């Protein structure tokens, strides 16, 4: 039974209670193990029964239907591993997620856990850095910066203290990969952080988790305690390495704190205002010390690279986008969830094939990729392969790989307005184009909605100003959703105008 927050939000606790009651009625003893989610969120709560042939799935389960788990019925799905969604994936980072008990070190080890760390401990710093670089891993938090290069900078810096910061602020709408792995396989994050720590010679790590994720906070905290008690963390990593320990910190509801320098200020107990770069956090990060800031998925992928080898990881993907990416498919889709696959899948295959089109059954109108700062793609761009460079070329971004689908009832002028509204609410206030521009943007869109055609060039100018004059991507990328909406869906911006005329 999943204990993942999405499964719980869809009634997993009620299903567990009903299953227990039904088992008592039938005189059966149930051994209930709580695991993470397989990522097939449309099937949650997904009950799995361990059988000789494998794990048989039942879902989406409801408390009223638990009899089917014992007797069979329309909710019986067959073996979970044989479901098309599972078979079509390349689950590397998420291999254990939904399979193991997240807090069982024995389970973790039995499924390949700590093989990467053991191997890394037997290598020198240079060899480890070479592996991370050779894997081609780029930051999964959004900016896509090569992880190995970042680590090399921190490793080369001379300081009395260095830090590893795991960015678990995951504020982008449409994304939940960080949440899922923290809830379903937290030791993989810890293992990745430990490898980072011994490589750059950092002794302390922080996991900064957004407060909107209470379950992930509880799970990560518990996992850190288990790992410390088992000697994985502490005075000597895994009993033979240098010292490294981890502390879990909780954010306070500020989207901008996902930006790495704002996050560092927040960790230091300050306002989450963005810092100017340089200095790079790699050289002057937490409390001015060299700091690796990496996304949860970047770090959770590190053990895979050391377990399977850098080349084996790099063999997946295309162009300069190597390895796998956990696609998070959300919004108005028939099948929403997490699907890990090599880079390169076309957006159309993702949205129409994997996700099965819209939940409403209406045509797809737009797909926002990469969170609230990502562009809206029309179906005309559905052949774009899911890769960093290709998305940039199409005027968008991969970001944290969130994919939000809208049907034809969406009003793209309203979506553009929301992008500005969100930017205004979440701006850290440091630069004028972002702080003031976002408010002006809402006003300008309202003028367009009232039928003022002259406001359209103003909108374009404003976006140019924000792009050029913002310190970080909150102000700098808000023009992506706005301009893509205007470019690809001009009718939605002209409708009001026609009505006015």
């Amino acid at each position, binding site marked *: 039974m999943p204990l993942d*927050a999405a499964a719980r939000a869809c009634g997993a606790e009620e299903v567990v209670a009903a299953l227990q009651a039904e088992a008592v009625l039938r005189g059966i003893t149930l051994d209930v193990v709580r695991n993470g989610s397989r990522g097939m*969120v449309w099937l949650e709560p997904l009950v799995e029964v361990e059988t000789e042939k494998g794990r048989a799935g039942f879902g989406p389960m409801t408390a009223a239907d638990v009899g089917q788990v014992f007797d069979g019925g329309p909710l019986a799905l067959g073996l979970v591993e044989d479901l098309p969604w599972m078979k079509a994936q390349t689950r590397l980072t998420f291999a254990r997620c939904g399979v193991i008990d997240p807090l069982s070190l024995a389970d973790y080890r039995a499924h390949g856990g700590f093989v990467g760390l053991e191997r890394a401990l037997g290598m020198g710093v240079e060899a480890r850095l070479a592996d991370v670089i050779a894997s081609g891993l780029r930051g999964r938090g959004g900016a896509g910066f090569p992880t190995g290069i970042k680590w090399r900078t921190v490793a080369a810096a001379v300081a009395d203290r260095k830090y590893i910061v795991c960015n678990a602020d995951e504020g982008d709408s449409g994304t939940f990969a960080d949440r899922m792995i923290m809830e379903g396989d937290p030791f993989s994050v810890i293992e990745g952080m430990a490898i980072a720590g011994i490589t750059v010679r950092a002794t302390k790590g922080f996991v900064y988790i957004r407060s909107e994720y209470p379950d992930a906070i509880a799970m990560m905290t518990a996992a850190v305690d288990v790992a410390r008690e088992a000697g994985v963390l502490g005075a000597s990593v895994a009993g033979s390495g240098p010292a490294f320990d981890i502390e879990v910190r909780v954010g306070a*509801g500020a*989207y901008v704190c996902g930006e790495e320098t704002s996050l560092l200020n927040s960790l*230091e107990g300050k306002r989450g*205002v963005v810092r100017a770069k340089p200095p790079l956090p790699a050289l002057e990060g937490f409390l001015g010390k060299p700091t690796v800031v990496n996304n949860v998925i970047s770090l959770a992928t590190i053990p895979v690279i050391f377990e399977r080898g850098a080349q084996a990881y790099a063999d997946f993907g295309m162009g300069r986008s190597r390895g796998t990416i956990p696609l998070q498919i959300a919004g108005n889709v028939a099948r929403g969830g997490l699907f890990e696959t090599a880079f390169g899948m076309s957006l159309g295959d993702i949205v129409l094939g994997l996700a099965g089109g819209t939940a409403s059954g209406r045509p797809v109108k737009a797909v926002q990729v990469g969170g609230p700062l990502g562009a809206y793609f029309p179906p005309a761009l559905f052949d774009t392969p899911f890769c960093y460079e290709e998305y940039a070329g199409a005027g968008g971004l991969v970001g944290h790989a969130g994919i939000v689908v809208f049907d034809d009832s969406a009003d793209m002028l309203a979506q553009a307005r929301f992008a500005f509204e969100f930017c205004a609410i979440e701006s850290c206030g440091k630069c004028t184009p972002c702080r003031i521009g976002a408010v002006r943007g809402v006003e300008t869109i309202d003028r367009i909605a009232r039928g003022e055609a002259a406001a359209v060039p103003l909108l374009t100018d404003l976006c140019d100003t924000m792009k050029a004059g913002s310190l970080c991507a909150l102000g700098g990328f808000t023009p992506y959703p706005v301009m893509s909406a205007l470019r690809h869906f001009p009718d939605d911006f002209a409708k009001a105008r026609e009505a006015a005329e």
Partner: protein
Amino acid sequence: MSGEALDRARIGEIVAAHQGMEGELLPVLHAVQAAFGHVPQAAVPVLAEGLGLTRAEVHGVVSFYHDFREAPAGRHVLRLCRAEACQAMGGDRLALAAQEWLGLDWHQTSADGAVTLEPVFCLGLCACAPAAQVNGRLVGRLDDEKLAALLGGVRS
């Protein structure tokens, strides 16, 4: 012991419990809010003194983050996700219905102190949208029926 003296002692305990932490202000503020339901104005100078900061610094941090309340919330807190994946599944319409039914705008608390309505920008439930959170409990696949049940539950 007067109420204020009690508060000071409690805040002092919280500060002491976080001693030795690096950059402890956020954890301290979360603990203060957990203890009092909000970060009382009166706590600011006490925290400033205890942590070796200026009042302006503490106030600046409290006011920067959406999570920290400067006044107590209602007995129930209903948070509705306003972000894109939930919009795509009709979240705006449900939010409007909730606002009308409660007679509250975002961030408002009902006159009888029963409920505070808050926006939230993504709960990570985007594949089972629209999403809500009631007194900390997460709710996915929100529809009219589920919303009516939630609204009924927060009214008293």
